[in-house]
Every structure is written in structure tokens, then in C-alpha cells.
């Protein structure tokens, strides 16, 4: 019965290494970029510039945490920037504005305004979750609709105006700092940490990976797949809303379309970091690396005085490269699987 005893398969270190391509490629990219910019620009590798980079990626980071949950479930959320924008504007709408700002707004005490903002983004997330899990609209299309709805809410609330005031707590968290460290970096770091702990150590985190890894097997094991996907979409909306409120304080104003770049930035950060677009692989660690790659690239290109118009193209090419690596890593994974049995 020689055929019956499957010998424990030996997997060569090389194959194993290639199986780790997803995690290694972004890290190598990050180190290479840092080395490149440090060598070509004396102003890049300084402590104050490190603080710059971190500050520049903080809002993206908060959005990207929620997006990581969604992408790990093999879904997508295209409404993150729009929800952020709507939430930021909603908070401003609920805050007393300067007389020069001509918005028929509804001033509330600061903490109530913040609660209102959180309730707003959760409501949008709940609509998305309902559409995806109950009605069965693919998340790609559902969140595209939510993107437009969020933009519509923004337009209606500010009517082409710009609001400047937000509750004082948000002002501190968004633009203040403790000692040398900006509060926004601390908030982003805490969000990443909590996201990581939830994904790694909790039952819910395990369910996220299972739903992304094999949705049908998860269902066969009694996991409420719809509840998990819905929760991921809610978390994404909550993170977006928080980023939106802090962003308004960070920018010092609330207006339409001010978050437009963050959709692509957040998705890029997750994908560049190596979290699989097919779900089940990756995590917050990957997202952190992705954020740093994007942040260093953005910041470094300025330090070497790259033509700012060329910069846009370069960012596009980097994203394309990351997508190639992402899909290629998935294929290597499949090969590693078949090599393993």
C-alpha cells in the first residue's frame, strides 16, 4: 500500500520564501525607498521629516484600518473617502460656525456633535452592510452608490460653503500635539494597534480571516458569514467617519471633495502592503508597511524635487506594480499549495 501513506512533503526554503512574497516585497520596497531617498537628499533622513511622514499618513492610516477588515473578507469599500467627508462636514454642521459662514446649521454641544458624527457614519455603514448582506448587492457596486450618496450629503450640508469650526476635542486630536508628537499620529497608531489586536487575537478576527479564506467552509462551520461581512463594513464606515472628523480639524476646514485623494490612498496602502485582494491573507502589519511605502514615496519625491506633475504618474505606476505583485503572490501561493498536497 505504498500509495496510501503520504510522505510528509518537504518544501524547499526557496519555495517557502516565494510563498512569503506577499509580505517580503513591500518590506524590501520600503527599505529600498528609504535608502534611495536618504542617499539622494540630505533633508530626507531627519527626525523632523520622519514626523512629517507619519503625520502625512495618519488620516490614511485610520481609514486603511477599516478597509483592511473589508478587504480581508474579500470585499471592497469604495465609499471610505466619501463617508469621511460626509462625517467631517456633519460634525462641522453641528458646531457653531463663524457668522461669515452662511450655512443654516444646527449647533450642538461639542460632545453631542461628535456623537452625531459617529452616528452618521455608522448609519451610512449600516445602509451599506444591509445592501451587501441582506439584498445581495456586490460590495463594489453598493459602495460605489454609497460614495455618491456621501458626496450628495456633503453637498447638501455645506451648499458650496466652507465651515471652519469643530468641537475643541477634535481640534486637539486633529491638529494639536503632546510634546513633539502630533496627536493625530498617536490616534492613528492606537487605531492600527486596536485593529491588529482584534484581527489577531479575537474570535471575530478569526472569523474575518475565515470568511475571506473560504467563505463556504466558514458557513459550513456555522459562522454567520453575513454578520461578519456586515460588521467589517460597519467598522470601515466607523474608521472613515473618525478619520473624517479628525481630518476636518487637521485641515482646519470642512468642505466638499476635500477627501477625494484618500480613497485611492487607503486602498493603495492596503494593497501595496500585501493584503490579498482575494481575501484571507495579510493584516494590519501589511497595511502599516503599505502606508509607510506610500508616505515615504510621497514625501521623498518632494525632497528630491521631483516634478509634482510626474509624481502623480509615479504613484500610479507604484500601485500597478503592487497589483502585479499581489496577483502574482496569489498564484505562487496556489503553487505552494499544490506542492504541499
Amino acid at each position, binding site marked *: *500500500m505504498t500509495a496510501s501513506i503520504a510522505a510528509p512533503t518537504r518544501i524547499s526554503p526557496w519555495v517557502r520564501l516565494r510563498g512569503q512574497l506577499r509580505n517580503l516585497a513591500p518590506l524590501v520596497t520600503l527599505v529600498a525607498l528609504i535608502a534611495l531617498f536618504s542617499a539622494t537628499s540630505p533633508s530626507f533622513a531627519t527626525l523632523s521629516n520622519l514626523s512629517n511622514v507619519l503625520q502625512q499618513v495618519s488620516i490614511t492610516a485610520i481609514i486603511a484600518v477599516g478597509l483592511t477588515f473589508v478587504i480581508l473578507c474579500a470585499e471592497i469599500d469604495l465609499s471610505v473617502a466619501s463617508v469621511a467627508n460626509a462625517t467631517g462636514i456633519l460634525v462641522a454642521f453641528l458646531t457653531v460656525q463663524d457668522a461669515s459662514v452662511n450655512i443654516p446649521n444646527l449647533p450642538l454641544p461639542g460632545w453631542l456633535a461628535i456623537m452625531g458624527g459617529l452616528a452618521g457614519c455608522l448609519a451610512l455603514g449600516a445602509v451599506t452592510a444591509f445592501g451587501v448582506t441582506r439584498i445581495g448587492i456586490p460590495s463594489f457596486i453598493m459602495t460605489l452608490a454609497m460614495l455618491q450618496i456621501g458626496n450628495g450629503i456633503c453637498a447638501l450640508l455645506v451648499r458650496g460653503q466652507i465651515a471652519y469650526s469643530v468641537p475643541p476635542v477634535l481640534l486637539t486630536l486633529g491638529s494639536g500635539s503632546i510634546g513633539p508628537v502630533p496627536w493625530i499620529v498617536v490616534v492613528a497608531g492606537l487605531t492600527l494597534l486596536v485593529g491588529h489586536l482584534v484581527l489577531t487575537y479575537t*474570535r471575530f478576527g478569526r472569523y474575518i480571516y475565515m470568511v475571506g*479564506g473560504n467563505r463556504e467552509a466558514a458557513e459550513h*462551520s456555522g*459562522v454567520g458569514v453575513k454578520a461578519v461581512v456586515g460588521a467589517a463594513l460597519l467598522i470601515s464606515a466607523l474608521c472613515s467617519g473618525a478619520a473624517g472628523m479628525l481630518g476636518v480639524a487637521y485641515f482646519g476646514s470642512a468642505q466638499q471633495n476635500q477627501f477625494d485623494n484618500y480613497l485611492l490612498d487607503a486602498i493603495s496602502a492596503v494593497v501595496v502592503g500585501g493584503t490579498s485582494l482575494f481575501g484571507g491573507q495579510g493584516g494590519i502589519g501589511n497595511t502599516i508597511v503599505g502606508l509607510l511605502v506610500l508616505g515615504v514615496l510621497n514625501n521623498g519625491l518632494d525632497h528630491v524635487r521631483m516634478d509634482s506633475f510626474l509624481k502623480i504618474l509615479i504613484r500610479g505606476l507604484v500601485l500597478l506594480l503592487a497589483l502585479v505583485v499581489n496577483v502574482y503572490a496569489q498564484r505562487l501561493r496556489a503553487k505552494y*499549495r*499544490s506542492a*504541499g*498536497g
Partner: protein
Amino acid sequence: MAAPLLELDGISKSYPGVKALDGVSLRLGRGEVLGLIGENGAGKSTLMRVLGGVVRPDAGRIGLGGRDRAHLTVAEAQAEGVAFVHQELSMFDNLDAAANVLIGRESLQAGPLRLVDRRACRARVAPLLQRLGADFGPDAPVSRLSIAQRQLVEIARALSVDARIIILDEPTSSLTLSETDRLLAIVASLRNAGTGVIYITHRLGEVVACADRVLCLRDGQVAGELPREGIEHAAMTRLMIGRDLQALYSPPAAAPGDGGLQVQELVTSAFPDRSASLHARPGEILGLAGLVGSGRTSLARAMFGIEPAVGGTILLDGKPVQIGSARDAIARGLYLVPEDRKLSGLVLDMSIAQNVTLPALAGHSRMGLINPASEMRAGEAQRAALRIKAPHASVHAVTLSGGNQQKVVLGRWLSLKPRAIVFDEPTRGVDVGAKGEIYALMRGLADRGVAVLMISSDMEEVIGVSDRVAVMHEGRVAGILGREDLSEASVLRLAIGAQA
């Protein structure tokens, strides 16, 4: 003797951990029908994939069309006139029969646009269909054809490319008796026209009826060959199994009790106008046989809440239960070991321990936080109890062989409190040694007082393992056979809907 159409010599193919083919040789002459038999997983389909150019053998020689090669490409196989009629027909439902026959080789009109000339296409296909005795024309939409008629379309496709070798893979698995007879007549006429036919089937009666020679594979090797005059049931069974069917059977420790899993007039969405009833008693293994598509898997999915039933009642230990999701079923101790473990059973990128604790994660966590040590203990316990061949429970499920993967899915339920377990094709793609272990585990469960329902298309398994067998035909239970009435013939008769 004239040079054979096809000569395979010493073909070997290994996959990690399994030798799928081990030095298999095969010869096929002009106008010869070769019956190819063997258990599931014996290597028949791998061998045919080598012949179709899909799988590249590790060693061996392929003599085809007067040339020797180490391997074939798909294009070479087609150019040499090798044609397949598959078990699961691959057709374009939205096109007519003629278009399906001539796919990629349509007649084109003269003129710069080179439009498809439908009339010419139909004129080419009509005589082929006539030759096969088809009762439909080339303009018949495939979506309206029965499975038997579709099969004729596939055979016509093979004829249209002047195939010299036609491979029929389980052609009758979904046919009625009279349709089978007609197909056998067509095989005979192909032979008389000089075509070489390889006929793969589980149904030994058909081999007796049509084959000139029989080749039997077992565990990737040629188990034996029978000449025309030696083709009879007993000899073939002996070659296929290499042991006595009844020897597989181990009797239950005690008489079955009351209660267990009972299904009354259950209606599934697959057969909305039929209902099925059956009763798996605690302490027994009830086999559920039937042809592919007879509604067995739908029934299992309905019982387990994956596709909730349209109507009917499910009783566990005599009490009616509402099952609207897998969660409900699991909460009541009713478990399913699904048909396709890679698709619906395992999360391949997770460890054995993580897969084992999947439905019971609440028991390994406190306030939502997973306790990795407790999880690993549970994984280790099942790894040891089920003798899963892996150094540690932290090994990823990806790296395990089919049999060991199946044990992981099983281990998941064994660590809970099962009252009834449904096994859907428990040993598909599982090697022979692990099969025996899985049978023993099923018997062990039954002896612990669990009601075991085993869905299987493997006749040896159904007859060899079950205490009783319920046979499904088109969505309803056509009959239930006790151990003493069990035979390949009695099960098949019910499965194909023949009147008793």
C-alpha cells in the same frame, strides 16, 4: 496484427505524496472497444488526461499516429484524432446542436466579412446526427435537449473531426436503461467503422455488453487485463477491489435505537415537486445511494441548513427541529461533512488546530479573545486521535493529503457532541489506506450512538459499509434495502428508476 492506434508504455505520474500512475501500459487497436475499469482514484482519469494532453507524465512513452512521444499537448492530441465525451458535458446551452458540434470549425460564407454560414453548418451536422440515430435536428437548441441527447451532440462532435480514438468517460452515469442500450449500439457501430473506443465505466454490465477487452487499474497500476471471453462480473470485481466486498463490512456493536435523524416529506429547491423521507437511527450507518443529480446533496444541504428546505419536517431524536442555517444544525448536534472538502470544508491557509476548532471557537475563547493554548490542545487531541499524518497541529491544512484533510474536517465534529452526522462522499479523492480508517471512524461513531448518514456514489463503499441503504431517484427515496438485499444490481435498479 496491424500497428495499434494507440500504445501507452510505462506511463508514470506522481503528485506530492501520491503516485497517481505507476508504469501503466495500454494498447488500443482499430475497431476495438477497450473497457477501462477501476475504483475511484485508481488512476483512470489521470491516465485519460495524459492521453488528452492535459497532464504531462513523469515517465513513459506515448505511441500515437505512428510516432512516439514522451508527452502530448492538447493540440497534438486533437490533431491525432483523440476525442473525449466527458462525464459532465461541456456544452454551450445558448447555441443550437450544429453550433455545438462545429464549435471553432464553423462553415463560413464567402465574402470579406466571413460570416458564419448557418445553413452550411446544419447541412454538415445533419448526416452525423442521422448516423447516430438522433431524434432531433441540427437546429435544436441544446438547452432543450436531454442529457442523452446532449451526449449524442458530443459524439457527433467527435465524429465531425474524424476522431480515430473516442474516449467515453462514464457516459451512462445519468442515462436511463433504454438510453444506455442505444448508446451501447452506437459504440458498436463506431467499432464497426474502425474507430478505437476507450469506455470508462463503473457499470460492469455495460462492459460485458460492449467491450472487446478490459483493462483494470488499481492504485495507479494495471491490476490486470481480461480478454473478450474472460469478461464477467466476478473476475472484474476481483481485479478492481482485490478483495471481497463483504469483507469491508464490520457489523454494528448493538441494534439501532430509536430517534436519530428523521426526515419527513422534505422538499428541496432542486426538486420542488418531489419529497423525500428517510430515517437514520442512532447506532447505524444508513447509506444514501443514487445517481449524480438525484437530489442527495440537496437533501443533505437542506438538512444542514445551507439551502433551507422548501417544505417538510426534520426530527432529531423524535422532536421536530427548525433548521434555517448551518448554525442551527450545529447547535442541535447535526453535522455535515461536505462533499468538496477544499471548497466547503477547510480553510486551507489555516492550521489543523484552527480548522478543528472552527465551529467551537467559543469554547476556546474568553470574552472574545481566543486562547491559543486551548485551541492547540484541541487540535493536538484530534491529530492524535485520528492519526492525522502531520508533525504538529500547527501545520497548515494545505500541506495534508486528501485523506488527512478529510480527517481534519471530521475532527472538527468529533470534538463536539454529535447526535447525527451526514457524510457526503466521505472518501472521494482519499487514498485506499485512509479510506479504511474513515470507515472505521464512521462505525465507531455509530457504535457511540450517533446516527450516521453516508451519501456515496462509490458502489463498493455503499455496499461494503452501510447497514441499510436508501436509494434516491429524481428527488425521492425510491426504496430502502436491508443488508441482506444489498447488491450492486439491486441498488442500481432503484437508482435508475426501474420498476422493481
